[in-house]
């Protein structure tokens, strides 16, 4: 059938009539919602969806507002990256096994891509997966893995053929984070806390059934994950923007105002407004079916603005800017710009131009994919990975 606003709303009403959120257990309710196709309506039937257009998700969410949710902040990687990748490349069995507990939040996911030696140049990664019978044995080290300590599954990219050029020898796996040989260590950041982890993989055995996509096709699968990551970062809903936070500080502390800061703040307010309009226009384009690499531009602008604003806030606060709220080594579940103070925002924002693609890589992408400028001379495209200079 063809779904429209009215029919999705009816479906939601019918679901609510059968599952009273006030009486049904939270997890039961979420599982039932998934089974009713109201988890992500654009997914296929039987996999939490209705095969409806993506924009009708807003109707389902509206109709079910106030009912138990799956705490999307906690399971962002599963929702934003694992789910679309599994949907696109997984076997029927994988989709049935993973998507439901992913969406209900019963199983947390993490992403095992970056390595100490492979950051911007991800395709050069060195974690090996060697086939033994119908298992793969994985050895290597991953880094910058958020949620690794709470995750049940990881999206793992590993090298299965060192004898071919770097992009071609990779395979994508679902890593069982409970398997023997998986060790997770917190990675403390400049903010004092540890959002991320290092993950050491030592003789980790993964059955063939956890391979996602074909052997050697891992780079293509990973591209889908990364594309969704950047869309997720660019489109993240925020309670309040950094501009609003800094503007509130400005309004509440008239004694701190100077002409220097005022002029800089007005500039940033204009930039912030321009970024808001640019993002709105981008969303319109996406809705009209014209997606593009412009999302990279938004992430770039966002990082810059965040850094400028948070830097200005610390300076504006003067004596209060010399203080910090807490250096305790903690393990937060998500970034919280608003629940912490100016110094934290300043330091944490530095990561915005590194995580999920550095600003340098994003500029390369814009230059090459949007503007069509020629690539730099490359020495590593046709050389077997094992023969690359290190």
């Amino acid at each position, binding site marked *: 059938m063809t779904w429209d606003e009215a029919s999705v709303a009816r479906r939601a009403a019918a679901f609510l009539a059968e599952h009273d959120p006030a009486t049904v257990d939270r997890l039961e309710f979420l599982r039932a919602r998934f089974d009713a196709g109201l988890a992500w309506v654009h997914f296929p039937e039987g996999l939490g969806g209705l095969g409806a257009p993506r924009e009708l998700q807003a109707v389902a969410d509206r109709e079910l507002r106030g009912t138990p949710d799956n705490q999307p902040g906690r399971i962002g990687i599963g929702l934003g990256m694992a789910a679309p990748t599994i949907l696109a490349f997984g076997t029927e069995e994988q989709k049935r096994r993973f998507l439901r507990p992913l969406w209900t939040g019963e199983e947390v996911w993490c992403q095992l891509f970056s390595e100490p030696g492979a950051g911007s140049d991800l395709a050069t990664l060195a974690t090996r997966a060697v086939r033994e019978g119908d298992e793969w044995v994985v050895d290597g080290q991953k880094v910058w893995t958020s949620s690794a300590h709470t995750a049940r599954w990881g999206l793992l990219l590993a090298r299965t053929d060192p004898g071919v050029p770097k992009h071609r020898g990779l395979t994508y796996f679902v890593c069982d984070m409970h398997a023997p040989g998986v060790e997770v260590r917190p990675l403390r950041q400049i903010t004092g806390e540890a959002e991320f982890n290092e993950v050491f993989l030592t003789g980790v055995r993964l059955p063939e059934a956890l391979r996602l996509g074909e052997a050697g096709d891992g780079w293509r699968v990973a591209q889908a994950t990364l594309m969704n990551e950047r869309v997720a970062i660019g489109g993240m809903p925020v309670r309040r923007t950094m501009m609003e936070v800094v503007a509130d500080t400005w309004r509440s502390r008239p004694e701190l105002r100077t002409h220097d800061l005022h002029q800089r703040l007005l500039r940033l307010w204009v930039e912030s407004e*321009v970024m808001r309009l*640019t993002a709105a226009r981008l969303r319109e384009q996406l809705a009209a079916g014209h997606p593009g690499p*412009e999302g990279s531009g938004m992430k770039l602008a966002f990082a810059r603005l965040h850094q400028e604003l948070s830097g200005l806030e610390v300076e504006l606060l003067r004596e209060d800017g010399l203080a910090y709220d807490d250096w305790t080594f903690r393990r937060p579940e998500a970034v919280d710009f608003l629940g912490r103070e100016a110094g934290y925002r300043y330091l944490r924002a530095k990561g915005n131009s590194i995580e999920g693609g550095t600003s340098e890589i994003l500029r390369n992408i814009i230059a090459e994919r949007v*503007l069509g*400028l020629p690539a*730099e001379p490359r020495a590593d495209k046709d050389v077997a990975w094992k023969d690359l200079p290190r």
Partner: protein
Amino acid sequence: MTLLYTEVEEELRAAVRDLLADRCSSSAVLGRVESGVESGMPYDAELWKTLARDIGVAGLLVPEELGGAASGAGGASAREAAVVLEELGRAVAPVPYLSSAVLATQALLTAWGAAGGEVAGELLGRLAAGEATAALAVPFAASPYAPPAPAVSLSEDGTVTGTVGGVIGAEIADVLLVPVRLTRGTALCAVETSPAGTVQGAVRVAPVTSLDLTRPIATVSFASAPARVVATAGGPETPWVREALLRGAGLLASEQLGIAEWCLATTVAYVRERRQFARPVGSFQAVKHRLADLWLEIAGARAAARNAAARLAEAPVAGDITVAVAVAQAHCGAVAVHAAEECVQLHGGIGMTWEHPAHLYLKRAKADQIALGTPGDHREALAGPADLPAPV
């Protein structure tokens, strides 16, 4: 409200762009610059006639009832005028669109909206039909947040006397709209410059050697020139002028967008072809990153300019358009200059030559940065609406 371009807008763009490709190439504009200095007529009157009459761009802001194309119900609006300005900016076209079809037209629309707007209505009809071209005799550098007091006076015999500097579009105007001071209050007067209705020497347009070669400024002098009163106001303000400057500033952002887009596209094309060190210059990462940053600025300029145009279209007579206009000007004014400066720099020596058109864009962008309020004026105007008060 959408920030994208509608199909109708894209069709209008295509029509304007085709005409300009045909009649307004870089070399044609350079030629016009040379001849314009000698003849005192910087504009391409034939091209303007075709644009105004055949494509009908002059009436985009004028209501249908006066012979224009604008209407609240899906007719033309500031959105379409903005698209025309993008294309004219992209071609640095020497036509009096901004001066006549935007600034003068907006002043008349404000006068027409008030009581006793018959003269305004008649003039708007002539402008919309492309029968006449007008200019607003106000300095192009005037800020909408501090419109200048009228420098011209109206005598009891119905003639005006005085001088206004820094005016655009006067050389080709059939009608000059002049803000004048009255004993009490102000008025907007219309002075015909075409031979039939004028006294010899009563109106003088003296060209000023200008930074912007494709839209120079002039000094306009009136010596007992016969005038018609278009509208009056009781206080010291000139509401028609303020409204024209503010709305003109909002639409100027689209011209700046067009300038920036030409500069980026031309630079990208050049650095893809130009080789140094046996590589295209555009394969050097520092060049790539700068152009990526410029692209991002321009993406922002497009969103801001579209937003300003859409807000103007939604509020055809009044309403709070200041934020949208000020944000667009504060951003786009700087982006156009930046794009033109990068265009010159990344062309190397060739961008410094008179034969290459880059300088026409640099000069236009720099003049536009001053026009209708500087980026600093527009930022300053946002302190109130953004609730970011200045230090005391």
